[in-house]
């Protein structure tokens, strides 16, 4: 069962991620990114992180990506035109990436080969209650700081996006 779920949603995630990269239209990329996020959210659920999963949907898929789509619509960004890639990408891009991925996977295999198994329901620490507890006791200061960060971000966004008064 766990295998089935994992493989299914991992497949969806990877396919949509590939889609994000290869699609030439921003909207298409955005939608596939939403797909990635959704499937990742399901994987979170499987990993016992209910709250985070929902937050993932609400924050990422629901708010951030909406912003993206907004901007794309506002700028009416069309499909990307093909042109000669920059030399870095041409020469190094693909091989470097493959090497990168290979190395990482190798290390994961080496370090975490027997890091234990994920079985649905073997970890129930991700309930809204426990997350909230951790957030408001051990991580209170970071939490506050983050709120300040958000505030500043809002101000910055407003300042940047408002039309000049002249």
């Amino acid at each position, binding site marked *: 069962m766990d295998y089935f779920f994992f493989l299914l949603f991992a497949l969806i995630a990877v396919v949509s991620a590939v889609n994000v990269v290869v699609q030439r239209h921003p909207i298409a990329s955005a939608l596939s990114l939403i797909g990635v996020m959704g499937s990742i959210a399901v994987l979170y659920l499987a990993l016992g992180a209910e709250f985070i*999963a*929902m937050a993932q*949907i*609400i924050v990422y*898929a*629901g*708010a951030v990506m909406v912003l993206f*789509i*907004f901007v794309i*619509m506002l700028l009416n960004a069309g499909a990307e035109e093909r042109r000669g890639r920059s030399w870095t990408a041409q020469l190094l891009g693909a091989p470097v990436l493959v090497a990168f991925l290979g190395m990482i996977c190798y290390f994961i295999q080496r370090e975490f080969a027997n890091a234990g198994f994920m079985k649905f329901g073997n970890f129930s620490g991700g309930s809204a209650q426990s997350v909230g507890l951790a957030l408001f006791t051990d991580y209170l200061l970071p939490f506050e700081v983050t709120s300040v960060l958000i505030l500043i971000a809002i101000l910055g966004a407003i300042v940047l996006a408002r039309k000049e008064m002249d």
Partner: protein
Amino acid sequence: MVFFIITLIKIAIIAFVLLTVLAYLQWVERKVIAHVQVRMGPSRVGPHGLLQPLADVIKLITKEGVMPPHVNSFFYLLAPFLAVFMALISISVIPFGTQLTVGPYTTWMQLTDLNVGILFILAVSSMGVYGIALAGWSSNNKYALLGGLRSSAQMISYELPMSLAIASPLLIAGSLSLREIVNSQAGYNLGFIPKWLVFAGPFPQIFSFIIFMIAAFAETNRIPFDLPEAENELVAGFHVEYSSMTFASFFMAEYANMVTVCSIATLLFLGGWHPLWPVEYGSNFFAPLILFGAGAICIYHGLNPARPLDRYTLPVFGIVFFGLAGLMLFPPTVPILMPLFWFLAKCGFLLFVFVWIRATLPRFRYDQLMGFAWKGLFPAALLNLLVTGFLVALAS
């Protein structure tokens, strides 16, 4: 295995009932508005136009779906499906009543009970924007685009006060699972005031209820917040380019959202399926009484009919009502039907309010809409949440 079968059965039932309800909701709306405006409303197709929805459905299905040129066909077709999907999926966590025992099997009148149910609904509703936004964008039409942008902006803006208004009753209920929340509202203060979150708790949630309802109107793009589909400025906004079934699915989505929102309001604030006054004061006999009354009226009008057809239709309704009333008095079914009845009654009342408001209020201006969201509703919700949290902390 049994679990799957039961779930499938439940899905089938709920889907069927829900879709029918959606179809008839529209009939109710037309009827109510008609009577508010002193008209007859649909009355040709079937007795009192009762078959009107069926006719509409057939019409919409059989019509030709026109796809305008230069649209991005994939997104153009994806949008309505997204919309209706997101609208329908949130029903799956809503409990309609208590446990239900059929032979050896007992189950809840609910598809599934997430213990983050509320968050789930919020998440889905936040996803609902995409359908509309995409529809607006992909149909390659400036009115549609404006409508799409407007509606997504509006939905995002009103999601905040909505979430905040939802959060404060959660503080009191102390759970995110809808079932738990409803259970926490059982019982009565002083023996007759129900422990609903609207009344009960350290701080009555009446304000958050009002805020929630207002935000709900905006979330479902209903009058007075229906700017995305403002006929007379945007020529129906984001779905201007849609026809036949795609158009119908947007409609379905809107009504499904209404149903969802109303049932959430019922569950969160109005005590779900708990009756309005205790059983020992005979709340169980309320429903049959109404039905008997309705039946009696139908019979009476049937005996001296205003229109020729009434001679046959109304008595039939009367019989049906009598039958239902009897069923509600029949002891084995009472524990199942009573909760269902109360839930549907509250939900239906809220839906009626929706229609009523639509028949009553004019439309906002767009800047007014946004200003109201950010300058009025949001601070109010925030304040309400603060006060609630403070009092809850004091009470605990």
